[in-house]
């Protein structure tokens, strides 16, 4: 770090010598200007230990204020900044520059399969509609208990993996079946159905299975594993979908 004997020029050099020059190649789209999307390059000095989201911030704050993208918490929890970075779906806030080969231009595109509204912002309505369609809430009958609904550790463990979903759409928009036909429920909706189907406290498992037995339900999954590879929460998405398929065959869940 800076010592009292360092002069100003030296101190500045020391403060910036860990910075590298990175090119961000961003897919820009503004329907008010042009009907076509174009690539635009931005060069910036950035610490390789920073995240892609920090780079996007630098561009928006210092270079081009019109760059449009979603982000909220910026710490991998809210799930709003899923985008296609170097060809793969990731969260911009969980991707370090040093991990994605900054020697080459870093491509940033909106996620596939959903209508692009502007730059990196897509219309998430079809995605959330599919989520609502699987009834992602606890359904019970009878009198409400006066205390918590107890569950054994083993019963909780059964669906632990699928409770981690943050609804970022990285999985659904990585799915070739979903790109082709947006009617498919998509991995994220199935993951959230799985979370309740295999919950011992829930009573609407049959109903959810019937919803997913639809022609646009689980049977459209072709096990390409793109969703499992893309999930920023490390959920074994394809495994969850296969468990729902098997539950539909055996009616045991």
């Amino acid at each position, binding site marked *: 770090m800076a010592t009292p004997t360092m002069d100003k020029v030296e101190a500045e050099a020391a403060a910036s010598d860990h910075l590298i020059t990175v090119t961000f190649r961003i897919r820009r789209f503004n329907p008010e200007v042009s009907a076509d999307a174009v690539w635009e390059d931005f060069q910036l000095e950035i610490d390789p230990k920073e995240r892609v989201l920090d780079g996007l911030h630098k561009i928006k704050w210092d270079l081009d204020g019109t760059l449009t993208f979603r982000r909220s918490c910026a710490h991998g929890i809210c799930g709003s900044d899923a985008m296609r970075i170097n060809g*793969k779906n990731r969260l911009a806030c969980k991707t370090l520059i040093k991990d994605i080969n900054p020697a080459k231009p870093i491509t940033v595109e909106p996620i*596939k399969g959903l209508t692009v509204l502007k730059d990196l912002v897509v219309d998430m309505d079809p995605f959330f509609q599919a989520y609502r369609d699987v009834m992602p809430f606890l359904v019970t009958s009878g009198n409400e208990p006066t205390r918590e609904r107890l569950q054994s550790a083993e019963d909780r463990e059964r669906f632990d993996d699928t409770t981690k979903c943050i609804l970022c759409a990285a999985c659904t928009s990585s799915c070739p079946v979903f790109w082709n036909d947006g009617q498919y429920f998509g991995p994220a909706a199935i993951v959230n159905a799985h979370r309740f189907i295999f919950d011992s406290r829930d009573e609407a498992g049959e109903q959810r299975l019937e919803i997913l037995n639809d022609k646009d339900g689980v049977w459209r999954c072709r096990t390409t594993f793109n969703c499992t590879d893309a999930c920023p929460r490390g959920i074994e998405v394809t495994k969850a979908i296969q468990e729902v398929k098997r539950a539909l065959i055996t009616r045991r869940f």
Partner: protein
Amino acid sequence: MPAGTLYRGREGMWSWVAHRVTGVLIFFFLFVHVLDTALVRVSPEAYDDVVATYKTPLVALLEYGLVAAILFHALNGLRVIAVDFWSKGPRYQKQMLWTVVGIWVVLMVGALYPVLGHAVREVFGS
């Protein structure tokens, strides 16, 4: 610059693409196969003429391609069944794919002589 980039999927996505492509190729083969077999109803001579062209080196090469497509489709099909019905299948899909590729390579080497031997003798002399 291109309109967009190709999605950079991994083993799972490419095995699915290869499964589709080989499936379509096998369908086209079956289509031709039904036609050439049906020729025997036209006349046995016409059938013999067509089948005689299958002994040429070029068709032998196509046959080797057919062996490649069918072997991959069959072996990867077993992997897909394992992914569907074996509870640990999804977790081991990559290892299973590389096993499939390994077996495929061994069988393709084994098929070299039976399928292409005749064509090689024809082209280069025996």
